[in-house]
């Protein structure tokens, strides 16, 4: 949870189909509900997590997006759903790029800056630890 402000969170929530959002970090806790009946399957609660960018394993002009938590890495939001992103995709700041499951909670990881996915570094369904490289990206 790095440098998240209220506007960023509300903005993200607005652009994402979740009906409720609860977010806790060392300095604050926030709960947001949408006034509509829509619900996401397979997700009990959603946490929006901004990826920390570590200059790690980077080649030439690419950057590495690492995991901010310990969990199971999924490229897809749900078993049968299409992947959040694919190699070659251009993603905007705030776009969800993967899901990391931890303690039965699905945590959606957002891109912190506009970028293009160059490589996926973690395997679908594999365990990832804190700081583990997930994506190699090229800043746009």
């Amino acid at each position, binding site marked *: 949870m790095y440098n998240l402000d209220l506007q960023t969170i509300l903005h993200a929530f607005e652009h994402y189909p979740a009906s409720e959002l609860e977010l806790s970090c060392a300095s604050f806790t926030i709960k947001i509900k949408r006034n509509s009946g829509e619900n996401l399957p397979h997700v009990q609660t959603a946490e929006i997590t901004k990826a920390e960018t570590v200059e790690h394993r980077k080649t030439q002009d690419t950057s590495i997006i690492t995991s901010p938590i*310990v*969990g199971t890495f999924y490229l897809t939001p749900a078993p049968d759903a299409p992947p959040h992103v694919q190699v070659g995709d251009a993603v905007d700041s705030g776009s969800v790029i993967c899901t990391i499951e931890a303690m039965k909670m699905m945590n959606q990881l957002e891109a912190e800056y506009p970028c293009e996915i160059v490589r996926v570094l973690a395997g679908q369904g594999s365990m990832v*630890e804190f*700081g583990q490289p997930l994506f190699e990206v090229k800043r746009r």
Partner: protein
Amino acid sequence: MIRSLLIANRGEIAVRIIRTCRDMGIRSVAVYSTVDNNSMHVQMADEAVCIGGPQSAESYLNSKNIITAACLKRCDAIHPGVGFLAENAHFAESVEKAGLIFVGPKPETIALLGDKIQAKRLAKEAQIPVTDGNEMPIEGVQEALRVAQAIGYPVILKAAAGGGGRGMRIVEHPRQMAELFPVAVREATAFFANGSILMERYLTKAKHIEVQLVADGSGSVLCFGERDCSVQQRHQKLIEESPAAKVDRTLIEHMVQCSRDLFSRIGYRGAGTVEYLVSNGSYYFMEVNSRLQVEHPVSEAVSSSDLVRLQLLVASGIPLSTNQSEILLTGHALECRINAISTGKITRFIPPLGPYVRVDTHLYDGIEVGPYYDHLLAKIIVHAPTRNQSIATMKRALQELVVEGLSTNQKEQLAIIDSPQFKNGAFDTGIYRQTIEAQSCKNT
């Protein structure tokens, strides 16, 4: 039986727990923060998972990442070590909810004993002498003054939810109350998110004596002797010994009996310690530490046992197979904590070795000791036939120890061990002030 254990801690205690895992053929999984990636516990464990950044809140206190790591690494249990999440009932509960074994007491036991006012009430019900004090949280300075008047000065203010010397204030005169009571409330709120304050009569000439127990939660409560932990600097223990010197053995036996009764009464499970103050031939209940303690090797030495092993057996649901009569306490054991008093990179580390000496540490040449965590570098434990021999051996060990690259309290420890006050044995919790601080004053 536990087959795979995640150790939710770092430093010497994580290394020490991994050693017992190896002895028992249990797979060990370490967790670490980004600054600990070269730590000895990471190197020694069978596997290791990075759980967060340098700040404890991001890593060693990050229960979600820890529990997720345990689940994904297919562990069946989590040992919290000492400190961090070891006495956190909420964590223990989360561990159990995740289907894992928490190596420690039941969450409700931790919660119960973590509230000092409740714990004291419990002790009173079990006929254990307690110091005079309030039975309900004190509301404001006026009530504090009234209670203190009834108890008699000096009094000590403690965070009801706290421990480890934080939020403690000694009030020697009513005129200090208006200033110190709000400070205690503020500190208690800041450290423990709970501003409840407990007030007790402050015993000035007291020894800190604690009783080491292991219970299986199904009837058996074993005692591994007592420890005298009176050598303290600002309520932080520095030197511990067993058996206690210059304390009436009948008194100790009573304390042991009280402690075992208390644990039986609450169906305690796991390793734990009952702490007392001993003053003027009487003992007074202080608190229960519902976890392993830093100074546990002292009791391991005199009882020739491995308390972490017993913790793991009990946590696996295996009843204690030993009888109290089979626990032979022999000789005398001492422990000195070697603390860092600066940060730095260890350029040379030579542990003391040879007869009667045990060393628990996570130091090695080249490791960085940073500012983020506990300043404990190593524990030197000696076990010899008599107290005098233990003291001589500890002196030898402290002289052999080499830690270069940062400052430690090694010389201070040597000064205490070698002081007439310590050798005599009749010291109280004022010994640090009498030996070290008095010395510093003389030198300046």
